């Protein structure tokens, strides 16, 4: 341990706690403000200077989102968009984890020509900006009559979520010794049986971390959804929130409510699986 005088130790300890307090405040205040805005009545929200009266708080906007049956109201639009986002994110995550796992297994275990360049092309696919692809995709899907469809978004989202899962999972699988499967095969497991029963349990923390990231990637996507959808049939929550922010039709309270609800699923996932995330990050981006 570092030897230092008592005065110096007290100083560092003070610095630590002051810094911790500032970090807690700066982290929590912005989204607490969002939550407060979703609970405040409109007239308090639009008063100068700002007032916060706890006794006026109500969950009425949340109730509206769950109940509204007027297709033109933001509440109704938000509910449907939430449904679309949930459906798309779950399908994309599950499909990309399964397909990505086997592709990653191939990269980690088998040797074939152009392996390195193929792996690199997957990495680039994940990195390539959507603005460079979105216009041709719009043209392709409009010719195929596939605009404004959840299936189309799932397909497009897979194009960046899948390379991500392949990239991260192969990084993990390389570090798992191949003798594990061989032993299982000697014991009578089939090729796939050995993968499922022996490898999957070993890399389950990596799979969970990858799932959280994949889910966040799909949930967070914006530009493709903006260009490729036009109605609440397929619009995602990000697109509807952005459209209400731009138009200023709804009071901010309603946008804040939609925002809190949109932030809830990824936040819950991130908090639940936090201890896997840090490990997943190191494997995904540092080990490679």
């Amino acid at each position, binding site marked *: 341990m570092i030897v230092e005088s008592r005065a110096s130790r007290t100083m560092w300890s003070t610095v630590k706690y002051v810094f911790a307090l500032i970090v*807690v405040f700066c982290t929590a205040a912005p989204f607490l403000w969002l939550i407060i805005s979703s609970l405040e009545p409109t007239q308090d929200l639009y008063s100068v200077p700002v007032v916060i009266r706890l006794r006026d708080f109500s969950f009425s906007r949340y109730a509206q989102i769950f109940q509204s049956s007027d297709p033109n109201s933001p509440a109704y639009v938000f509910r449907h968009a939430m449904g679309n986002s949930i459906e798309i994110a779950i399908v994309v995550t599950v499909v990309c984890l399964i397909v990505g796992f086997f592709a990653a297994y191939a990269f980690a275990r088998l040797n074939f020509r152009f392996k390195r360049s193929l792996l690199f092309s997957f990495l680039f696919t994940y990195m390539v900006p959507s603005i460079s692809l979105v216009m041709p995709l719009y043209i392709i899907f409009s010719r195929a009559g596939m605009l404004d469809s959840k299936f189309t978004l799932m397909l497009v989202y897979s194009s960046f979520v899948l390379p991500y899962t392949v990239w991260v999972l192969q990084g993990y699988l390389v570090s798992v010794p191949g003798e594990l499967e061989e032993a299982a095969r000697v014991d009578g497991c089939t090729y796939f049986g050995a993968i499922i029963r022996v490898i999957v349990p070993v890399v389950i923390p990596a799979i969970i971390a990858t799932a959280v990231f994949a889910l966040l990637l799909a949930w967070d996507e914006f530009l493709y959804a903006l260009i490729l959808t036009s109605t609440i049939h397929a619009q995602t929550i990000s697109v509807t929130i952005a459209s209400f922010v731009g138009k200023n039709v709804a009071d901010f309270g309603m946008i804040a409510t939609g925002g809190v609800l949109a932030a809830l699923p990824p936040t819950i996932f991130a908090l639940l699986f936090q201890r896997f995330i840090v490990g997943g*990050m190191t494997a995904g981006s540092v080990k490679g």
Partner: protein
Amino acid sequence: MLLFPAFLIVVVVVLIPLIMTFADSLKHYNLLDMSGGTPFVGLQNYAKLLSDPGFWGSLGRTLHFTILSLVIEFILGVAIAMLLHAKFHGQWLLRGLIVIPWAIPTIVNGAMWRWIYNPSYGALNNFLVWLHLTKTYHQWLGSPATAMNMVVIADAWKMIPLVAMLVLAALQLIPEDVYEAVAVDGAGRIRSFFSITLPYLKNVILVVLVIRTIDAIKVFDIIYAMTGGGPANSTMPVAYYAYDATFNQLFISRGAAAAYLIAMLTLIFTIVYSRLLKTEEESK
């Protein structure tokens, strides 16, 4: 066979559109003026782009965004990682709290900060006046001088946790006895930070640097939610320039040329990134 489905999706959804974007960028293709059709013009769009001050301005703003956000994210990311690595009361609270900004969707984050920066009803002006730090309400996003920096703060708020978590993971791998060795030499905290901690973090810092640079080159969503590129184009980075050319001005070929240049820029950084990982692997 294991690779085929993944390979198919990459070819159909990424490779073909990328080639189409390149093909569009070689034509004169303006939806508002289709009288001459869409003739092939070679590299003319690129030449025009490179002589357009608007394009250079947007590149400069991308650079502004990238450098400022990297500096903020690194200083605060490393500082917060050090804090989370040290022991203090209530640490569990901060460890949980810190994930939340990262999990909030970008558009929600943009909308949230836009509301915080609101000149009259926003929390920031009210808070600063309440603290007597300022007497008047500021137009944070309404003035070209401050708008970009305010967008960077909003983006950094979401991304600092990621940097902090990555650096924390690397910090936990530093063996304790290295610190004891320099302590014997009488090194203080500040010296041991520069002589041990930073060198150990070199790899993770380089990797995060490249990833965040690629993210910054692509920055679009938060701009869309907060400013739409305004006021007076002061927050229009190069990805937004490409979007604006394509979808607002309907000048498809110009947007395609800009979009293709951005793709090539990310390709260069992706190569840097994969080289970095390779040398790191070999050094192990």
